[in-house]
């Protein structure tokens, strides 16, 4: 049994050295090539001072190099931090300094975009292979960077000549070492880094391998971005099984008909994505004209799948097994539900199901008791080896969310408070009811409305602001901001959207901005969000 994620690769290299491990943008790496490339990168990172537990950021579009870098960092004992290649440089800069990143793998234009960000901790930046051609003919400046940071700039081909056969062997890996950090939206306006250990990831991967029987002849998709935890399934279940991962090209992520063709052409058998991507596939994917007989399993997670579209999807692909997976980044997936096709036509709500293997979940009601009666609602808690050790550099936040399990008095252990309200069903499954706080999902992205509000409030012309979520069948939620400017400030909706664009990812920019003289308040003087949502609903209909 593997205790370190890199062992999943080692095992498959022995069985299938020449088999394709990953395909992206028409390029491939065999298992042997992936092993060799990641060994070389591990030596490069070690030469550059990466030691056990050091953070290395991966800041470039998804490619075959992504996998080699993830594995290379872990083989050097480091912790990789996947960064959204489309995020504003200011947010990336915050993440770099927050986790005191030692190295970066990136592209030249992104490195330049970070010129004004705080990258003082970064000692080296490796440019990706796509840039290698430029470095050879001298158009890329390599060597020590300027005072703005980014450290020494190293071309990709520096790995050539480094040992291919084995990674550095000068440290003792354990399963509780950190493997990667995933940054998610934070309610106070700053993203927070969820730390995940090898044990955390492997708990999930081993359950998947068993439950979904991923085989060497399977072809999986890489749909989710690598900074999103759905991709953990794609990458590591592929490696675990000795299967092949097909990174979905950008145009297929955008155009549903192109995605349908891609699934057919690449003979994809297992795919995992957010429901809104599947809704677009149902509505615009021309699935009826596609031959998808290779497809056997669709997994989805990240948001609630609207029943009417799930029923349509099930009807279009009657041979495919459908699974609803649930879990915050802090636990990866913790519950699951296999869609029962016989019952589906009568179902009004899709359960999140029950706990995955090696994980326990329970709901805690307002009286601080475990929920045992069907029909009762409580906050979902998760315990077991899948639970994160906490948030990087934030002991306070960690103590609030990863709490002592007071229902187990015999030894110290932690449980994660999801903040999600669930109801226990008669059959033992759970239904998701909603959130305790202001976190929402839009197109599967986890968004803290507080982070959007903080971005808007940082505009000097803004006096009050509230970000609200308007429920929507296609995308989960649409984001609206209601803003009261300072008296006489000529601020416009467009100003505010552009202001947000330099601070938050694009998917967090409010689609609608309404300007008002003041915001409605509750009797306790807080902004009345319930009323704002109700008024926005009425205005739309």
């Amino acid at each position, binding site marked *: 049994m593997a205790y370190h994620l890199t062992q999943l690769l080692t095992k498959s290299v022995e069985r299938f050295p020449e088999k394709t491990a990953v395909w992206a943008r028409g390029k491939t790496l065999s298992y042997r090539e992936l092993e060799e490339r990641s060994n070389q990168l591990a030596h490069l990172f070690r030469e550059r001072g990466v030691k056990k537990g050091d953070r290395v950021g991966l800041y470039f579009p998804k490619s075959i190099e992504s996998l080699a870098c993830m594995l290379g960092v872990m083989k050097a004992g480091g912790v990789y931090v996947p960064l959204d290649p489309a995020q504003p440089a200011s947010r990336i800069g915050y993440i770099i300094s927050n986790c005191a990143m030692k190295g970066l793998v990136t592209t030249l234009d992104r490195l330049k975009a970070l010129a004004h960000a705080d990258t003082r901790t970064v000692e080296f930046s490796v440019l990706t292979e796509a840039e290698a051609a430029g470095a050879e003919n001298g158009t890329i400046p390599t060597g020590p960077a300027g005072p703005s940071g980014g450290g020494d700039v190293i071309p990709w081909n520096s790995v050539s000549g480094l040992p291919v056969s084995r990674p550095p062997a000068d440290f003792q890996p354990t399963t509780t070492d950190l493997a990667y950090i995933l940054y998610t939206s934070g309610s106070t306006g700053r993203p927070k880094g969820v730390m995940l250990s090898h044990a955390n990831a492997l708990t999930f991967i081993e359950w998947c391998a068993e439950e979904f029987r991923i085989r060497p002849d399977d072809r999986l998709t890489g749909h989710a971005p690598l900074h999103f935890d759905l991709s953990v399934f794609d990458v590591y279940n592929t490696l675990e099984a000795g299967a092949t991962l097909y990174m979905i090209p*950008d145009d297929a992520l*955008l*155009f549903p008909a192109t995605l349908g063709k891609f699934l057919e052409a690449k003979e994809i058998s297992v795919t995992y994505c957010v429901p809104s991507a599947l809704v677009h596939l149902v509505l615009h994917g021309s699935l009826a004209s596609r031959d998808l007989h290779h497809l056997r399993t669709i997994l989805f997670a990240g948001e609630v799948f609207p029943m009417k579209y799930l029923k349509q999807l099930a009807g279009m692909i009657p041979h495919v097994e459908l699974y609803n997976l649930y879990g915050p980044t802090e636990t990866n997936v913790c519950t699951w539900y296999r869609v029962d096709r016989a019952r589906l036509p009568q179902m009004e709500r899709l359960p999140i199901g029950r706990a995955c293997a090696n994980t326990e979940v329970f709901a805690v009601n307002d009286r601080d008791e475990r929920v045992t009666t069907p029909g009762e609602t409580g906050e979902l808690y998760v315990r077991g080896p899948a639970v994160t050790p906490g948030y990087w550099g934030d002991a306070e936040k960690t103590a609030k969310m990863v709490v002592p399990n007071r229902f187990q008095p015999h030894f110290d252990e932690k449980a994660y408070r999801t903040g999600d309200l669930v109801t226990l069903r008669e059959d033992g499954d759970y239904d998701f009811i909603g959130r305790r706080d202001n976190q929402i999902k839009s197109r599967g992205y986890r968004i803290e409305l507080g982070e959007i509000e903080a971005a808007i409030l940082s505009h000097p012309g803004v006096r009050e602001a509230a970000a609200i979520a308007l429920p929507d069948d296609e995308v989960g939620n649409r984001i609206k901001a209601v803003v009261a400017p300072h008296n006489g400030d000529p601020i416009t909706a467009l100003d505010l959207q552009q202001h947000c664009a330099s601070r938050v990812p694009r998917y967090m*920019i409010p689609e609608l901005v309404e300007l008002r003289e003041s915001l409605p308040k509750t009797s306790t003087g807080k902004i009345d969000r319930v009323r704002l949502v109700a008024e926005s609903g009425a205005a739309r209909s």
Partner: protein
Amino acid sequence: MPETAKDQIRQFVTDIAQRKGLDVVTDDESLTSNGVIDSLGIFKLVSFLEDTFRLKVADDEITNESFESINQIDRFVAGKLEKKPA
């Protein structure tokens, strides 16, 4: 001077780009790789074309080849309008 189809398309695309804090886009720039058009925006654009030019876009036609840039969208619309019965 009456607005051409391309002017109307450019105006619509520029509005989206501005709301995302992106620079002015040129007519042959890739809207899909610079993030102007995302998975939600593409269907807003299709609805806009259908309403403005009174045409019907089939799902199979919503591809990178037809929608990558302002120039390509304009050619796509022109092609649709030519084929449309008077």
